[in-house]
Structure formats: C-alpha cells, structure tokens
C-alpha cells in the first residue's frame, strides 16, 4: 500500500483528470488525498475524499480577470505573474502541512500547481507531474524570451518555497510525467522526454444534474456541440452568436447545442438549443462534431468519441492544442476574433461532410481507447512508488 497526494490548482479542468486516476489507485488498495482549495476541489472530487486546505489568490478578484483583448504572450505573462506565481506561494504552506500529515510516498503535482514540485524537491519527496495539457512540453509560447521570463519567475519562487540548489523544472518531473493524451494527437515528444507517459484521457463520470432536454434533439439531424469551456465566458458572446447563425443557415444539415453561461445567445426553434451547462460526456455521445476554444479537456473528450472539431483558440495553450488537432487532420482551425458565420458555416460543412476529417478523429479515438487512461496512469504511479521505497 502506498500513499499518493495530488496537488492541484483551483481549476476544474486540472482537477478532473486526477479523479479517475485516484479512483484506480484506491481500487488497488492505495490511499489518496488532494491538496488544493477545498471550496473548488471538494465538490469535484466528492464528499468522501480527503482535501488538505491550500489557500489561493481570491478567485473573485477582478484584477485576476483577463480582459478578452489580452491574448498571446501578454496573456501568458499575465497568467504567470498575477495568478500561477502567487498561487504557488499561497499553496506552499498548505502543501507542506499536507505532506507532514498525510506522509505521501509520491506527490503528484499538476503543471500549474508548481508549489507541488517545488515543495517536494525541498522536502526530498518523490514527485510526478500531472500534465492536463500536452502543449507545454517543448515551449509554452514558442518565444524564447517569454519562456525564459517564466523560467525566471519560477526561479524566484524556488528561492522562497523550493530547494534553491535544484535546477529541475517543477512543471516537468524527471521521474514521471503523466500526459493525458496520446502521440496520435500530441505528436512525438522530444527524445529528452523519456519519463513522459501518454496514458490518454482520464475521463471520470462527473456529477451533473440531468436536466437536459434530450427530446428536443432531432435524431435525424447532425448535432454540433458548441462550447468555450469553463473559463472563457466573458469572451464568448460574439463568437457563439456567429456559430449559432452558421447553424441556422444550414437547414436540415445541422442542429446545435450551445453552452452559454452568459445567456446572451438566442435559441432558434429547435435547431439551436442554448443551455448554461450540459452533461458534456453524455451529450458528446449523441453529437457529430464540436466547435470549441481548443481547451485540452474538451478537445480530448470530443476525440474520445471520434468527433471532428472546429477549434477557435483564444489564448494560453489553446493555439498549440488547436495545431495538434489540425496536424492530426481531425479538424479545422478558425480565428476566434475574426470567424464570421460564413467562415464557420464553411468549416461546419467540412467537418460534417469530409470523410478524411472523421477518419482522422477516429484514429485519435482508437489511440485514446488503447492508451489505458486512468488505469495506465495508476500503474505508472504504483511503479514509481515501488521504486521510491
């Protein structure tokens, strides 16, 4: 029996993949716990789970909201300067306390919870990386100047909460990196990354209220899910409206479910359903294509069902994830700020009708289903714990 501590940021997309892995470890007779912000992590992992409290910058602080205009390298810099850096300092005492109390054999740190890797190196603890996106393996930004700026910020954090003598990257463990994707989507990892294990998506059933009006979907019409994920509501209205218009302009050829937490997109008869939230996995099973922002989780969930994608990346890792999709041939990319209903309509015709696109998405699906998911991740963690003892 070993003990595993998952160190996670207060971001649903980064917590979700750990849930299935933890469940597999528990099934194997191991003990698991999380370190994170209980108000966010607790409801996701369930009431029976142990969550050690780590504090966080105030998530409601308007200074943390990135305006839609803030994109590209500036958005990345803002993310690290205002959120991920302060988050690491907020989390570090809680992570140290959790280690002291739970005595984990292995600490599993999310890539955006750099306090995990830094505290582990300070305490001489074995740690692995949970990579909920594969976009950062080579370069986060594609620009050396930005990458070295981020590395500098991490270096300063290390002086305060890590081991000042270490040179390791707290975003990439040199022992084990669990990548919730496959090379069929992410492309080959540079040879230096031998510790990277592609386990495919770790999809666990998420608690969702089943209030979805399934009867309103016409089983004979191709269905498109249109969603910008959980973190991009403020930038959404124009793009979602253009998507809805593209669907309206294609009678009998498409119906859409639009996820719109802002409630600004109008419904259109029964062909454009607008919901503040949806049971995404259950819905994807009924869909034929997905329009999204290129969030790693949404993309992988769509491809889990072999659905071709239209990706409109907004910022952060999304452009890189979008490039993975187009390189794999599993979809097309549109420009988030520029895509008109005409452009989106043409893109819809491509993903709904091109057999090549669907076949490519099917190949990624097959690779995902063969990769082992949460079960494979648990096996790698068990092996790491065994080596650590």
């Amino acid at each position, binding site marked *: 029996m070993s003990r595993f501590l998952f160190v996670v940021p207060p971001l649903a997309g980064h917590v979700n993949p750990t849930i299935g892995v933890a469940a597999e470890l528990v099934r194997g007779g191991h003990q698991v716990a999380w370190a994170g912000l209980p108000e966010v992590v607790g409801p996701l992992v369930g009431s029976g789970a142990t969550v050690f409290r780590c504090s966080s910058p105030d998530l409601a602080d308007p200074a943390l909201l990135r305006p839609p205009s803030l994109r590209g390298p500036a958005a990345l810099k803002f993310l690290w300067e205002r959120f991920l850096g302060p988050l690491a300092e907020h989390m570090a005492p809680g992570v140290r306390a959790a280690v002291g109390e739970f005595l984990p054999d292995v600490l599993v740190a999310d890539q955006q919870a750099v306090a995990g890797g830094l505290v582990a190196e300070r305490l001489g603890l074995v740690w692995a990386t949970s990579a909920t996106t594969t976009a950062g393996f080579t370069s986060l930004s*594609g620009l050396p100047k930005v990458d070295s700026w981020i590395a500098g910020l991490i270096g300063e954090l290390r002086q305060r909460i890590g081991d000042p003598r270490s040179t390791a990257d707290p975003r990439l463990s040199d022992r084990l990196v669990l990548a919730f994707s496959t090379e069929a989507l992410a492309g080959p990892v540079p040879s230096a990354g031998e510790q990277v294990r592609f386990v495919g998506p770790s999809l666990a059933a998420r608690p969702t209220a089943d209030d979805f009006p399934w009867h309103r979907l016409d089983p004979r019409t191709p269905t498109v899910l249109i969603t910008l994920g959980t973190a991009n509501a403020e930038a959404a209205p124009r793009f979602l409206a253009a998507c809805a218009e593209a669907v309206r302009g294609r009678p009998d050829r498409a119906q859409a479910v639009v996820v719109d937490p802002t409630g600004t997109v109008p419904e259109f008869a029964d062909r454009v359903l607008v919901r503040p939230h949806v049971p995404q996995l259950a819905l994807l099973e009924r869909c034929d294509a997905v329009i999204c922002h290129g969030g790693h989780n949404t993309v992988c969930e769509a491809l889990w069902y072999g659905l071709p994608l239209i990706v409109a990346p907004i910022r952060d890792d999304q452009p890189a994830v979008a490039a993975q999709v187009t390189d794999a041939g599993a979809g*097309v990319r549109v420009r988030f700020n520029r895509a008109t209903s005409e452009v989106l309509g043409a893109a819809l015709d491509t993903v709904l009708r091109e057999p090549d696109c669907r076949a490519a998405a099917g190949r990624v699906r097959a690779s995902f289903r063969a990769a082992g998911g949460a079960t494979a991740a648990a096996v790698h963690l068990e092996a790491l714990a065994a080596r650590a003892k």
Partner: protein
Amino acid sequence: MNSSQAAPTAATPEAVFEEITGMLHAVLGEYGGVVNAGITMDTRFHDDLDLESIDLVTLGGHLQARYGELVNFAEYLAGLGLEEIIGLTVGQLVEHITGCLRAPGER
C-alpha cells in the same frame, strides 16, 4: 552558402510585401477569415490577424524556406520585447526582410 541564389533581384518592399501576404494566408489557413485586401503594411499580427506566437513560428518556417539563411526570423523575434512582438506589423517585417536581402555581404 550561395547568397546570390537566395537573394531575389526584386527585393523591393512591394515584392517582399506580396510574398509575406501569401505566406500569411498560408499560416492563417483555409478558414482564416482574412481577405487579400485586408492585409496592409499597417496590419498588426496579433490584434488584426489573430496570429498567435505559434503562428509566428510557422511563419518563420515559410520565411526560411523562401529566403534561406539570409533571413533569421527567430533571431529577429528574440531581439524584440514582449510589447514589440505584440505590436509587430506586416510593414515592420517587410522592412526587416528588405534590409536582410539588401546586405548579404555582411554575412
């Protein structure tokens, strides 16, 4: 390296602009949503074309394929600050490339 081979005789800003425009359409992709007339010397890569840094890397590949070692786009970008990269215009790139092509003797 044979510099005369990579340096086109018509390295005028107009000719370079035409070539860059073509490359930008390739980078933007089939659904880029940008018409030819939409790209001018004042067009900004980030704000006007929605180009991401990953697209700049792709553009660098096109530039290298066209101009060879005369133009090192990655090095050019590395010399720019974050704000300068964000504000980069087509005209600035054209000017940089025209300059590189004009002075092969310095290499």
